[in-house]
């Protein structure tokens, strides 16, 4: 019983397994299968027909062919080392068969040597097989480890990708939140400014009204007594006329009396002026008994615009200005206190006319003083805009414009109460807002917004 057929089966089986596991050369796999079957049949046949002497040559040739095949094909690079274990057995057993038994002379010596070498070759094969096996196992282990590492790396990479997407999402979210917060802060700042402004206006309004109350009574006395004095002086004059004194003394007395009358007329005139101011100051605290009623804002605004225009024309014949209206037909009727809103429109339009008139004094002939009055209904908001192409105002003036007693008009032309009162009417009386936009030297635009509650 020789070892060669076993080696053939082992090599063929090994190659077959290797090719299968690596999934290459299916044509070779077919061939190997066919050869395995053939070798099996031959192996069986040699025992049945006792033809070992013939078949042994086939095993030798098959082993040599297989060895040559494995050593030359690049696909088997990996198992070439294994051949070093197999080759000595293949060569020595081939030589053994070639020389045959019981040879004399030189061949006999070689045959003896081969006989001695054969067991060593077998031992070599077994030892190499074990070593190889061990190495392969170690390599396999290494490979497995590397594969695991690669797998790990792939998982890590995947997770990294997922993480990166998540980080990006979070960053985007944070950025959005930051922007939102910034917007909120800005809104809050604006609201704060507005609150401070309205609080200032409210306290100023109360103060104004308080002062007015205190001034009203003494002022009444001033006016009343000066009125009485005027009458008394007139009577004095009348008596003096009838008096029998020297002409020059009488003249002097009459002159002094005349001066007294004149002075009291002045006192009365200025007293009345103060009275007008006090009266409009009192408007700030007036307990409002005026009822809100459904009002056609377009008609009201137009009416007061004309009222202002004709009022100013009546006072000053040289006054002239173009006025244009753009009234939203969708405005409809809204609940307001008509005389109050009328007052606001009147104030604003008067100011506008004043502004264009002032500019006209210095501007060239191609300046056309113009006032625009427009209304707009946007959902639940009634908007009234009054614009003029007058001198406009700087930022510093804009800040103070709604404060009581603030005026840019010369003494006697304005009380500085018109806009503060308008502010109060719109904000407190109607829950709306009034803002001013202005380009210095070019234009001023007041925008009133009143919420429509229906």
């Amino acid at each position, binding site marked *: 019983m020789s070892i060669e057929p076993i080696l053939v089966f082992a090599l063929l089986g090994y190659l077959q397994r290797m090719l299968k596991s690596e999934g290459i050369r299916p044509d070779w796999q077919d061939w190997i299968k066919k050869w395995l079957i053939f070798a099996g049949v031959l192996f069986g046949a040699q025992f049945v027909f006792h033809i070992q002497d013939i078949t042994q040559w086939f095993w030798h040739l098959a082993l040599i062919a297989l060895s040559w095949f494995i050593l030359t094909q690049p696909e088997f690079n990996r198992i070439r080392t294994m051949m070093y274990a197999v080759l000595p057995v293949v060569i020595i057993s081939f030589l053994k068969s070639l020389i045959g038994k019981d040879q004399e002379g030189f061949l006999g010596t070689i045959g003896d040597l081969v006989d001695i070498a054969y067991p060593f070759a077998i031992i070599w094969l077994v030892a190499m097989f074990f070593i190889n096996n061990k190495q392969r196992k170690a390599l396999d282990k290494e490979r497995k480890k590397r594969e695991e590492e690669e797998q790990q790396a792939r998982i890590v990479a995947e997770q990294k990708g997922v993480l990166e997407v998540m980080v990006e999402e979070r960053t985007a979210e944070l950025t959005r939140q930051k922007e939102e917060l910034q917007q909120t802060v800005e809104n809050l700042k604006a609201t704060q400014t507005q609150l401070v402004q309205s609080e200032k206006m409210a306290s100023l309004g109360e103060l104004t009204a308080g002062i007015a*109350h205190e001034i*009203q*009574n003494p*002022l*009444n*006395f001033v*006016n*009343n*007594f000066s*009125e*009485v004095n005027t*009458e*008394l002086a007139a009577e004095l004059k009348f008596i003096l006329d009838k008096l029998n004194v020297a002409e020059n003394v009488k003249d002097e007395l009459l002159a002094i009396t005349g001066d007294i009358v004149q002075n009291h007329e002045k006192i009365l005139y200025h007293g009345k002026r103060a*009275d007008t101011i006090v009266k409009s100051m*009192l408007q700030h605290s*007036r*307990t409002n*008994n005026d009822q809100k009623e459904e009002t056609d804002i377009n008609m009201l605004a137009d009416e007061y615009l004309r009222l202002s225009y004709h009022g100013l024309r009546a006072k000053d014949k040289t006054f002239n200005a173009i006025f244009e209206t753009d009234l939203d037909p969708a405005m409809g009727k809204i609940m307001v206190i008509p005389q109050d809103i009328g007052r606001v429109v009147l104030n604003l339009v008067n100011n506008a006319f004043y502004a264009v008139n002032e500019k006209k004094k210095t501007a060239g002939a191609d300046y056309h003083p113009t006032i625009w009055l427009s209304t707009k209904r946007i959902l639940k908001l009634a908007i009234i805009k009054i614009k003029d192409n007058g001198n406009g105002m700087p930022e510093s003036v804009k800040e103070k414009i709604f404060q009581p007693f603030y005026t840019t008009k010369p003494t006697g032309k304005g009380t500085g109460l018109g806009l503060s009162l308008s502010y109060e009417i719109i904000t407190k009386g109607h829950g709306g807002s009034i803002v001013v936009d202005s380009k210095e030297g070019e234009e001023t635009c007041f925008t009133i917004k009143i919420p429509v509650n229906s």
Partner: protein
Amino acid sequence: MKILVVDDEQDVQTLFLQKFRKEIREQRVEFAFAFNGKEALTYLEQLHHETVLILSDINMPGMSGLELLQNIKEKFESPPPVVMMITAYGDEENYNQAMKLGADDFLTKPLDFSQLKEKLKLS
């Protein structure tokens, strides 16, 4: 005609006396003054039959003009004196209350004396 003027401002006396100087001189009118509600009531208790007209301020410390009005209308029924209320603020609330309490007229400060004279049929 005897008129009682009620006002916490002392100068009102001087003002009235000067304003009606001619009428007083001609003895067409006679003035009495009280500087608060209590004084006014004391005066009326003594001389109420002579007084035909009471001019009262509404804003007074202590008894307000409206309280005084209520008192007068309750206490002095015959002959009922004419009461005119005067106030610095011509607001509706004061006006309505004065009218409800039986005020005969309602005047606002600063007083228009020529209008007052007309009402008193002195001019």
